[in-house]
């Protein structure tokens, strides 16, 4: 399909005849393609800014502070989705991080050799499964299970006035902040675990051996030598995982309940920026509605952009 260009350079050579003029064309084409990256990046920012401008102008700072999102009365306050995005992403990270470290340490340090490779490959492959698959599983399997075995019992047995009762209040249909975070966690878990594993493998064998040679236990070697050795990269990867969780659309849209008010508990339905855009953008009838959604997009872009830049700076400095 696409690789014919690679295996037959001779045909391309006819397209770009040798000689200084052909050279210059080839080189400029490559340069333009590279510049496209910059153009795309700038384009995303400018397009979102222009598209969202009417909403920023109409609501000003209230766009971020108000949680009233009402397409009928044309009032748009994005606090609900913004908070929802942050909560679900951080919760997902909180759930996934220890597991991811556990898996990668297990694979690098403890797992019998015959098992280590297959598990590592499986984890890596799972990292590539499209998020819509995770989302569907959340909707059809996790949500009903969660409602039946967790939400109902809690609703019945825990008084709504207690601290715990307030945490778990909500419609018992399994579509809520917590299940959305769970799905997000499951989705970023294979990704983080496999990158962590690669990172841990970059620690020179001699440094590991030196630590073991002093009589350290595997736990001590992992905590005091291996993890510090790859600290920057590790934090970078955590940021990338966070970036994924922040911007993930399909895994969340299915299961978060899609209400725009501020969530009152872990078991309350909510929304994220991405899920709101995915749900409403094609149905937005008024100019202001789509402007507000585009403005939301710009907010999401700014948040993830910051996280990604930090991640890349940290990872880039690793060597």
């Amino acid at each position, binding site marked *: 399909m696409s690789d014919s260009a690679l295996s037959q350079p001779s045909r391309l050579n006819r397209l770009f005849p040798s000689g200084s003029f*052909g050279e210059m064309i080839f080189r400029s084409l490559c340069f333009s393609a590279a510049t496209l990256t910059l153009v795309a990046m700038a384009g995303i920012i400018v397009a979102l800014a222009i598209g969202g401008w009417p909403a920023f102008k109409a609501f000003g700072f209230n766009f971020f502070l108000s949680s009233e999102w009402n397409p009928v009365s044309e009032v748009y306050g994005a606090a609900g989705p913004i908070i929802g995005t942050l909560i679900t992403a951080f919760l997902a990270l909180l759930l996934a991080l220890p597991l991811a470290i556990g898996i990668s340490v297990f694979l690098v*340090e403890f797992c019998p050799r015959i098992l280590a490779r297959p598990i590592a490959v499986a984890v890596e492959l799972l990292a590539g499964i499209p998020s819509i698959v995770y989302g569907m599983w959340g909707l059809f399997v996790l949500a009903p299970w969660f409602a039946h075995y967790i939400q109902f019992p809690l609703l019945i047995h825990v008084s709504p006035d207690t601290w715990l009762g307030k945490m778990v209040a909500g419609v018992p249909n399994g579509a809520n902040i917590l299940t959305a975070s769970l799905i997000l966690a499951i989705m970023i878990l294979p990704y983080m675990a496999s990158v962590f594993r690669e990172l841990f493998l970059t620690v020179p064998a001699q440094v590991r051996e030196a630590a073991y040679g002093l009589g350290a236990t595997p736990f001590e070697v992992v905590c005091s030598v291996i993890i510090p050795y790859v600290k920057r990269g590790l934090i970078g990867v955590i940021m990338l995982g966070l970036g994924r969780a922040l911007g993930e659309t399909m895994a969340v849209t299915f299961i978060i309940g899609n209400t725009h008010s501020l969530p009152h508990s872990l078991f309350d339905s909510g929304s994220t920026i991405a899920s709101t855009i995915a749900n409403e953008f094609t149905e937005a009838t008024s100019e202001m509605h789509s402007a507000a959604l585009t403005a939301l997009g710009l907010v999401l872009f700014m948040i993830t952009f910051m996280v990604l830049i930090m991640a890349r700076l940290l990872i880039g400095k690793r060597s």
Partner: protein
Amino acid sequence: MSSNLKRRFINKVFVALCSLSTLLAVGMLALILGSLIVNGAGGLHLSVFTQDQPSPGMSGGLRNAIIGSIAMCVVAMIIAVVLGIMAGTWLSEYSRNSKYGQAIHFLNDVLLSVPSILVGLFVYEIMVRPFHGFSAFAGAVSLALLAMPIVTRTTYDMLQLQPNTLREAGMGLGASQGLVIRSIIWKAAAPGLLTGGLLGFARISGETAPLLFTALGNQFLTLNMTEPMGSLPTTIFQFAMSAYDDWRNLAWVGALLIAMAVLTINILGRVMTRGGKR
């Protein structure tokens, strides 16, 4: 020595926790794949590939969505591979670590993980809104924008792996730099470049969000790139969120198909790299 007993105990607990988290995660992921197969495999008839998507209550398949997905992915990949390989080549061979080159490299890495829904919004703003219509071509462009950074990055990495002696040998024979790149370096790196393409392909073949408001979706079969076009992910989304059982069943079938396709492409990519390294 009691502190020593404590150390060994802590270590035991740690090993147990690590094993447990692996067990938990692998079990969970097996559960997901399992329910995908249980729910999807039953509906996997030939009709899925020969009939278009049905109205609620009717029988039908996913032909229009499958073909739409393939069409948009192919167009996207052509764009992404051509541009990505050129961009990666420039970064690796021509940029000479200039400030601009480093900036592009960095931006490409960031673009790699920009939320796909924002890419969809961007393409909507530049291609759908100005021309007043959703189109398969807009969908393909948004997918291309998602695949291109991957191809660029892999191309860069693979070209960097090629030894400088190769370049010097080629130029020593009097070939120009561009000729050396096209006739020697690309050839030597071909398996790696192909892997880059496959990785990009795997990434976009399951993408849903950017298609929602670029290609939109279409319940009829079409190959016209200027019209809205159906795709597997958007159809799955629509069907899964619906209240009809047969639509939901078809959604499972579609999800199974996508998962299988992505797995196959990824495995193919791994096999290629291994073949290339040898």
